[in-house]
């Protein structure tokens, strides 16, 4: 790859990254404002700035569609900024349009990242935006008409004036500029038409305008000078000529005083001013964007350092030596590596807020489309998770929210009839509980119907035991099975062939678990538990014979020795149980689970570890505890994928200080229900 290519590519990357960030901000502002039923002045300014920046960078990157759409959004907000009171006129339609515009931008961004990019055509949205701009300015009645421009051929009355306007070369978007000019002229004219007519609807009109100039046919309400003033004050007009009477054209050619009015015109000036203000009051930007692969690499390196450090500390050559100064230095090193590791981890952490906002958008869109009323309440958006995990949960979450909107939340009438508040409520909340993130997604919709679920499972042949033996929880879990989808009809939003089984798979891929609670008629709650980070875990190393296992500290409740065998209860099926504080826990001998030949069989010799997994716990019996270590999780080699070790209680492996390997236990899959 040549240097030039690389430069352009990274420029594109930066463009996409920046634009996506700004679009997210735009969406947030819009949602917030729509809810508040008004836009604060500050937000208007922000939207204006965002669209202005997008316009600029898109034009630089040569994406005309994006640029011109951003331009027209910017125009609308430019007017609003001057006249905030006019907002009420167009409130609803503006929001829909800006959302449409934002969607268009997002689609373009996706396209740009894809294999082949074809520019989209935003002219429809632009036309509607222009129309709304007209409404705000009071030049058009706030009645929505599909074809806003006047008919092409109007009888021009005797005192009609023809004005030929030439725009500055290379100003771009001539058709839009022409249309804006028409809007400006409107109040001064009794009749108004133009050649080409309806320039805003047809971007090809630009070429004609550049070639022939833009011809305005009008009958001025006042003097022709008023019109001249308007034209002179508008942007990017290079020159104009007023041909007084259509029949006897009398040239009155005026060359605009300043040939390049770009800097001086009021729009840019105001813009510059607002930017300057923002600069002075804003905090200095100290954020930089970094390629994620670099972060991954850094993470790997830190992992290696942690391992290497343990190798030095636990080096067998040091055995039996008393090295005070060495120990001191090691302690210093350990402190630094710990800090380094914390920092690298924190770099990779992103707040869930961004993901939550996406959900907000889905709820808004779907409630409009489906005619349902719903609000999304988010809690704990500032909870941070590893970027990889964040990326992995966006899709499952979107799917669950869609499901809730589509299937769970009832129509407003139904809700009122059921005695529920008209507006449905979906709550998504996250909290950090030490090593794990707890996320719940709940709705107050119809809830899961166990009879329906069972019936459906029966017809799909998913039942493995008599129906009467299924507990409520087991029935709910049926929806997580592949090939289960309660809705027979495929709707626009959910039911695209992916079901909750995909959601579960995605969550499990990042080491998470999902559980369901539901009450018919009251709503459903999904609880998702995800590890904070994938890369490094605090673990307790335990040994069975010569095999070393690592048990994540977060899963351990306590460890203890058994005083005498009588504490063990033998179940009828031969399994062992132990009673701790009035609760009965099954005992799992690692030695037997993994058929390890060495290792003790005597319960009195080994040690019991009580672990927690998704509400139910059990005890693991092992030979000995080796100690607490930080270990770097490495996945098993791909070669071993066919053995599906992840579902057999092993989440990965880790290289220990002495170069040997420990197997990391996953308490959730270790014990089969």
């Amino acid at each position, binding site marked *: 790859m040549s240097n030039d290519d690389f430069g352009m590519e990274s420029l594109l990357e930066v463009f996409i990254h920046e634009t996506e960030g700004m679009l997210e901000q735009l969406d947030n502002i819009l949602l917030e404002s729509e809810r508040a039923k008004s836009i604060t002045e500050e937000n208007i300014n922000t939207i204006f700035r965002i669209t202005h920046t997008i316009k600029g960078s898109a034009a630089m990157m040569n994406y005309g569609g994006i640029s011109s759409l951003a331009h027209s959004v910017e125009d609308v907000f430019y007017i609003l900024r001057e006249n905030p009171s006019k907002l009420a006129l167009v409130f609803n339609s503006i929001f829909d349009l800006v959302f449409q515009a934002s969607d268009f931008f997002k689609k373009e961004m996706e396209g740009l990242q894809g294999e082949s990019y074809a520019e989209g055509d935003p002219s429809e949205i632009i036309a509607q935006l222009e129309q709304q701009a007209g409404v705000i300015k009071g030049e058009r009645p706030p009645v929505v008409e599909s074809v806003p421009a006047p008919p092409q051929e109007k009888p021009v009355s005797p005192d009609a004036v023809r004005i030929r306007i030439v725009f500055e070369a290379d100003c771009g978007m001539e058709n839009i500029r022409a249309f804006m000019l028409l809007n400006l002229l409107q109040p001064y004219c009794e009749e108004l038409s133009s050649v080409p007519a309806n320039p805003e609807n047809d971007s090809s009109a630009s070429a004609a305008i550049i070639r022939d100039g833009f011809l305005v046919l009008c009958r001025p309400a006042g003097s022709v000078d008023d019109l001249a003033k308007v034209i002179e004050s508008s942007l990017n007009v290079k020159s104009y000529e007023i041909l007084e009477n259509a029949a006897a054209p009398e040239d009155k050619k005026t060359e605009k005083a300043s040939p390049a009015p770009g800097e001086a015109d009021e729009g840019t000036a105001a813009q510059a001013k607002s930017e300057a203000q923002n600069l002075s009051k804003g905090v200095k930007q100290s954020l930089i964007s970094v390629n994620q692969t670099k972060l991954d690499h850094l993470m790997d390196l830190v992992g*290696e350092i942690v*391992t290497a450090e343990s190798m030095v500390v636990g080096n067998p050559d040091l055995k039996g030596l008393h090295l005070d100064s060495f120990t001191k230095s090691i302690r210093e090193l350990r402190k630094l590596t710990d800090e380094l590791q914390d920092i690298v981890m924190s770099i990779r952490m992103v707040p869930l807020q961004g993901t939550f906002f996406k959900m907000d958008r889905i709820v808004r869109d779907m409630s409009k489309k489906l005619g349902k009323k719903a609000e999304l309440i988010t809690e704990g958006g500032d909870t941070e998770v590893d970027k990889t995990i964040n990326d992995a949960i966006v899709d499952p979450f979107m799917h669950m929210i869609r499901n809730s909107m589509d299937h769970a939340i009832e129509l407003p009438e139904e809700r009122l009839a059921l005695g529920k508040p008209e507006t449905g409520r979906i709550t998504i909340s996250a909290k950090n509980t030490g090593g794990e993130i707890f996320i719940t997604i709940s709705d107050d919709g119809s809830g899961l119907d166990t009879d329906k679920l069972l019936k459906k499972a029966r017809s799909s042949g998913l039942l493995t035991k008599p129906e009467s033996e299924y507990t409520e929880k087991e029935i709910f879990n049926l929806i997580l099975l592949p090939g289960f989808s309660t809705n027979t009809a495929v709707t626009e939003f959910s039911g695209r062939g992916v079901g909750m089984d995909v959601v579960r798979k995605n969550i499990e891929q990042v080491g998470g678990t999902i559980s369901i609670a539901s009450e018919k008629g009251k709503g459903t709650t999904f609880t998702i538990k995800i590890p904070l980070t994938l890369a490094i875990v605090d673990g307790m190393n335990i040994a069975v014979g010569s*095999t*070393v296992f690592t048990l994540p500290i977060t899963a351990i409740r306590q460890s203890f020795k058994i005083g005498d065998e009588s504490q063990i209860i033998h179940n009828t099926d031969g399994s062992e149980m132990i009673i701790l504080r009035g609760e009965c826990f099954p005992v799992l001998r690692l030695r037997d*689970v*993994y*058929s*390890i030949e060495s290792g003790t069989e005597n319960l009195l010799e080994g040690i019991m570890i009580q672990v927690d997994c998704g509400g139910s716990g059990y005890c693991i019996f092992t030979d000995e505890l080796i100690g607490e270590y930080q270990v770097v999780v*490495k996945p*098993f*080699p*791909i*070669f*071993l*994928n*066919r*053995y599906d*070790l992840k579902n*057999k209680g*092993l989440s990965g*492996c880790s*290289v220990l200080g002495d*170069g*040997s*390997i*420990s*197997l990391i236990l996953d308490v959730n899959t270790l014990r089969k229900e």
Partner: protein
Amino acid sequence: MRKAGNNMTETATESVKYDGLQDRYLLFCIGDTNYGLPLAMALEILNIQPITRLPCVSPYIKGIVNLRGKVIPVLDVRAKLGMVERGYDDATCIIVIDLHDMHIGLIADRVSEVLTVPQENIIAPPKNSASYIDSVSDLDGKTVLNLDCEAFFRDDLDQNLS
């Protein structure tokens, strides 16, 4: 699952890349039999080292070892070929090979030498789909069975990629 034909082209490009490795084979022994492996596939040879055993895997997969921070699976060629296993000794080696960018360790009784086998000394074996042998070469009365790694790992890869 990649087809054998694909492998041929791959080996071809690889031999272009590793010019000089063409026609060169790494010879290892299982009992009294000599096996050959295209030298381009072999990454390195390790002395036998402690192997972390894995539960729930086929008996011929002996476990995983740490190769400078990289975790690689180790297979016993003897067991894979269905021969009687024997204890490991000082001569026992782990040959690390690269198969579709996966690093795999093969346990062999011993590694004997690297040989250049001229094309004319290579004889195609009788067609047998169950065989792991690609060809047989005959050198100064020494018979070498050239391992077809693609076939050798077919069982393992099949379910990997599905």
